[in-house]
């Protein structure tokens, strides 16, 4: 009799867990669906892309496209060790410009961190915010990029905090960040961060996977100049 009761309770418990699980999955699916790129009148999908000014001259012969996640520690290592030398020797000298494409996959805070950079861009501070995120980076999802901290970073940069918070809470750039993530994988074949696509003046592109040291970038960039 006792065993029968235990079995019944176990079955009920498993059923409840399954129902809750399905509910959470469905809710998550619907949330993604509601925020997915909208359809235009002709039925084709579009996303209102936000044009970000590249770091450096737009007429530079080389473009370095960085595909990254703001919570990726290898991206931070590259940011700290290699990026300053590239900026000094190639961006500041007009030989190359730098573009960043979001591929937020490491944790729950990766997406909002990427969205926050576009909210900062609404007030003209995309690259300043980008730099601050890498400077403040800690471990994945340990709270360093939660909503409050993202607002605090915006406040520290002197942004209009009400406008920034409104942008974040409305998920204004959710679709854009998702679009960038999909583009990173489908168009550029990125399966890890950081991944770099270096495009030469004649359109020739070279792909570097991983946080390569400056010497590798130097050789690659010079070969495309």
């Amino acid at each position, binding site marked *: 009799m006792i065993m029968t009761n235990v079995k019944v309770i176990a079955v009920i418990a498993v059923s409840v867990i399954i129902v809750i699980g399905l509910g959470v999955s469905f809710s998550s699916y619907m949330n993604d669906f509601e925020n997915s790129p909208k359809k235009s009148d002709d039925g084709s999908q579009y996303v209102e892309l936000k044009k970000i000014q590249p770091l450096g001259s737009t007429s530079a012969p080389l473009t370095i496209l960085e595909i990254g*996640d703001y919570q*990726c*520690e*290898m*991206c931070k*290592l590259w940011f*700290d*060790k290699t990026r300053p030398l590239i900026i000094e020797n190639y961006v500041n000298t007009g030989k190359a410009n730098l573009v960043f494409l979001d591929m937020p*996959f*490491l*944790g*729950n805070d990766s997406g909002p961190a990427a969205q926050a950079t576009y909210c900062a861009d609404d007030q003209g501070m995309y690259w300043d915010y980008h730099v601050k995120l890498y400077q403040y980076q800690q*471990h*994945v*999802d*340990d709270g360093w990029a939660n909503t409050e901290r993202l607002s605090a970073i915006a406040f520290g940069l002197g942004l209009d905090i009400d406008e920034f918070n409104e942008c974040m809470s409305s998920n204004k750039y959710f679709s854009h960040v998702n679009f960038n993530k999909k583009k990173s994988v489908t168009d550029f074949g990125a*399966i*890890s*961060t*950081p991944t770099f696509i270096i495009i030469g003046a004649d359109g020739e592109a*070279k792909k*570097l*996977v*991983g*946080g*390569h*040291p400056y*010497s*590798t970038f130097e*050789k*690659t960039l010079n070969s495309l100049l």
Partner: protein
Amino acid sequence: MNNSLQIIYSNYNYILITITIFLILFFTLSVISEFLFLEPFITFVVYPETSLSFLLIVILSIFSAFAISMNIYRVKLIKETKKIGSSIIGTVIGASAGACSCGPIAFSIITTFGTAGSIASSFLTIYEIPIRLTSIGILGMVILVTATSLSRECKVKF
């Protein structure tokens, strides 16, 4: 213990096995952890910030090589496979730690297992150093226990 090591490594095949296992592990872990880049140029880089992680990889590879080769000898001698299992588990745990940061392994785990994969990946990254130290501890114990038991079993045989 010294006696056991002398017995095992007096056979050059075991020295070869140890060196091979070390090189395979060291190479694999160096590539996964982005100390060694194979494309577009072969580049090896260790920054001061990552030197501890690199040192742990070297120690882990050495300990794994010794633990596995000693246990291969043990298996051949007494057909007992328990300790080789422990050394392989220790190696796998240590190798997994930190190898899941932003690389293709993390991407595969996260895209396949979703939130659970993300949690597992970040756990392995956050606790990289303690996990590697634990694995080195496990492998050290395996080496010690294997050497001790081998010398005891050899004494009994004498």
